[in-house]
């Protein structure tokens, strides 16, 4: 087990370097970031040259990358164009996004798995068909349409919730954005659980449990659900990373100042430091979430052992 974890952690190192290099190159391909700094005017050439020098943009890309990575290892993620430290941006943005992600994941777990269990046990019945339809509809509509529609209806027309989120982003204001963010994944989780439950419901061990005379509730929660959760856990685990970085559209609609917002700003302003910094952290989150998922397998399925 310990060796396995260490091996996986070691493998993260090349992924980390590869991802940062790739992102670094991508942002560099986008062209000259200085040009966008002077509004609709052109920066005067000497100021532009001076700015390039200050941000190290006058050096070859490989040298920029090495300098950047060297700084990252001393905890310095650089400075955004508005003069803020990237670490400062991160400490403001990540708590917000983590809260949003938690809300979204809770929706996925609570609603998604419940619906999945219900439909899985009643495969082919009307309730199954209805939920199936709903999930398909949710998958088929782009997130920004869902978001704008919910914001308009709940926030403006009916005044049930505030249409946007305050900078402090308390949990209760994140409910609707969280639901929007989770919507597609929610549909996936429902369908995953449904299939898994339906399949395992015919497994021998479930039949044995029922034959033993265990109460139905106990059969479902202890035997059936636990064994059906592996694909769901896989999905949710990998979804954590996707939700955190993929909230760009949702955060924009609800004016949430989280990771997606900073990333979007960084991209628009072509601030290499911001983008690479945030994506690096996201890649790490993604890798660690994957590792945790793999370890959870052993918990859920005793047959799995790591060497």
């Amino acid at each position: 087990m310990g060796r396995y974890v260490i091996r996986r952690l070691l493998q993260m190192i090349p992924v980390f370097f590869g991802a940062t290099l790739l992102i670094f190159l991508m942002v560099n391909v986008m062209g000259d970031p200085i040009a966008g700094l002077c509004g609709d005017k052109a920066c005067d050439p000497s100021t532009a040259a001076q700015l390039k020098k200050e941000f190290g943009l006058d050096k070859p890309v490989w040298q920029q990358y090495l300098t950047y990575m060297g700084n990252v290892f001393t905890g310095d993620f650089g400075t955004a164009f508005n003069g803020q430290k990237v670490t400062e941006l991160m400490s403001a943005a990540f708590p917000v996004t983590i809260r949003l992600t938690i809300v979204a994941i809770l929706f996925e777990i609570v609603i998604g798995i419940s619906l999945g269990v219900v439909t899985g046990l009643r495969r082919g019945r009307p309730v199954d068909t209805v939920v199936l339809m709903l999930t398909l509809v949710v998958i088929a509509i782009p997130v920004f349409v869902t978001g704008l529609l919910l914001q308009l209806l709940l926030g403006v027309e009916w005044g049930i919730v505030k249409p946007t989120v305050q900078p402090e982003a308390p949990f209760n204001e994140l409910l609707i954005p969280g639901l929007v963010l989770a919507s597609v994944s929610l549909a996936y989780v429902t369908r995953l659980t449904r299939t898994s439950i339906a399949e395992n419901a015919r497994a021998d061990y479930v039949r044995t449990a029922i034959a033993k005379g265990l109460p139905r509730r106990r059969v479902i929660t202890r035997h059936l659900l636990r064994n059906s959760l592996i694909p769901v856990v896989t999905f949710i685990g990998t979804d954590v990373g996707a939700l955190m970085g993929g909230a760009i559209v949702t955060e924009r609609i609800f004016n949430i100042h989280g990771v997606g917002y900073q990333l979007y700003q960084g991209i628009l302003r072509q601030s290499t430091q911001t983008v690479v910094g945030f994506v690096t952290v996201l890649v790490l989150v993604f890798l660690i979430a994957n590792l945790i998922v793999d370890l959870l397998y052993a918990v859920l399925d005793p047959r799995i052992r790591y060497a």
Partner: protein
Amino acid sequence: MPEPYDDGAIAGTGAGGAMDLAASEATTLERTPGGPQGTGPAEKARSLWSDAWRDLRRNPVFIISSLVILFLVVISLWPSLIASGNPLQCDLAKAQEGSQPGHPFGYNGQGCDVYTRTVYGARTSVTVGVCTTVGVALFGSFVGGLAGFFGGGWDALLSRVTDIFFGIPVVLGGLVFLSVVTSSTVWPVIGFMILLGWPQIARIARGSVITAKQNDYVQAARALGASNSRMLLRHIAPNAVAPVIVVATIALGTYIALEATLSYLGVGLKPPTVSWGIDISAASQYIRNAPHMLLWPAGALAVTVLAFIMLGDAVRDALDPKLR
């Protein structure tokens, strides 16, 4: 779960480390060694497909979704069959007007006929969906298949590359790759979606190849001295391809929806291309005043996505002997 390979037991569980639901759903069907049929491997493969086909022909979901898709393909090829107008002919004086005789869906914000644009948009959106899916499926299975088949160092390398591509935010990728493109054709968008979409299929393909590789008949073929390419193409691929097909059909719908999101962010398809994504993103701002502008292209998109997802669903159910 005996054989230790790179990612521990993931693939062995049938979950395949897959991000996509259908991946894990689908790979499960591969771990039924010595299933109820108990027949030989080659025969089993054939009967799996023919059984599936017999199932599908009787499945109303399959029939309906196939008809919808057929219809879409036809109007993509010959849009003028059902729309006589010109999607680029716009009269600002009629902007945002509602339904009227001869123009059942009304006009959009530029005064273009929504019905004509919805019909003509099908070609782009279906092209984007189908081409992206084919590209992703081919490239993803190639990489994933190699990783799964050869294992060891190859697997570690290819899987880590997959991880790297997984880590790139779609919007960043979109802004980077698509903003440098000046072409107004659909190909850059398709190329971009393949670039960020293949890791999903690669993981699934890898998982199912690993599972298939352990089957007795593959071991037998190896023992008989079959070459790598013969094993991969004759024995493993036919048994590992099902999950890829299933996931791909579901993903196809999401690619069409993704094109809409890219357009919303301003990096999707460029005019004068007509697509649902462009129209949906333009109309989303007017959701309060003129919802009809959003309703029709979004409805067409949803129906298309539904048709492909249902097709994928039906195929998966048909391929899964346990759910029969």
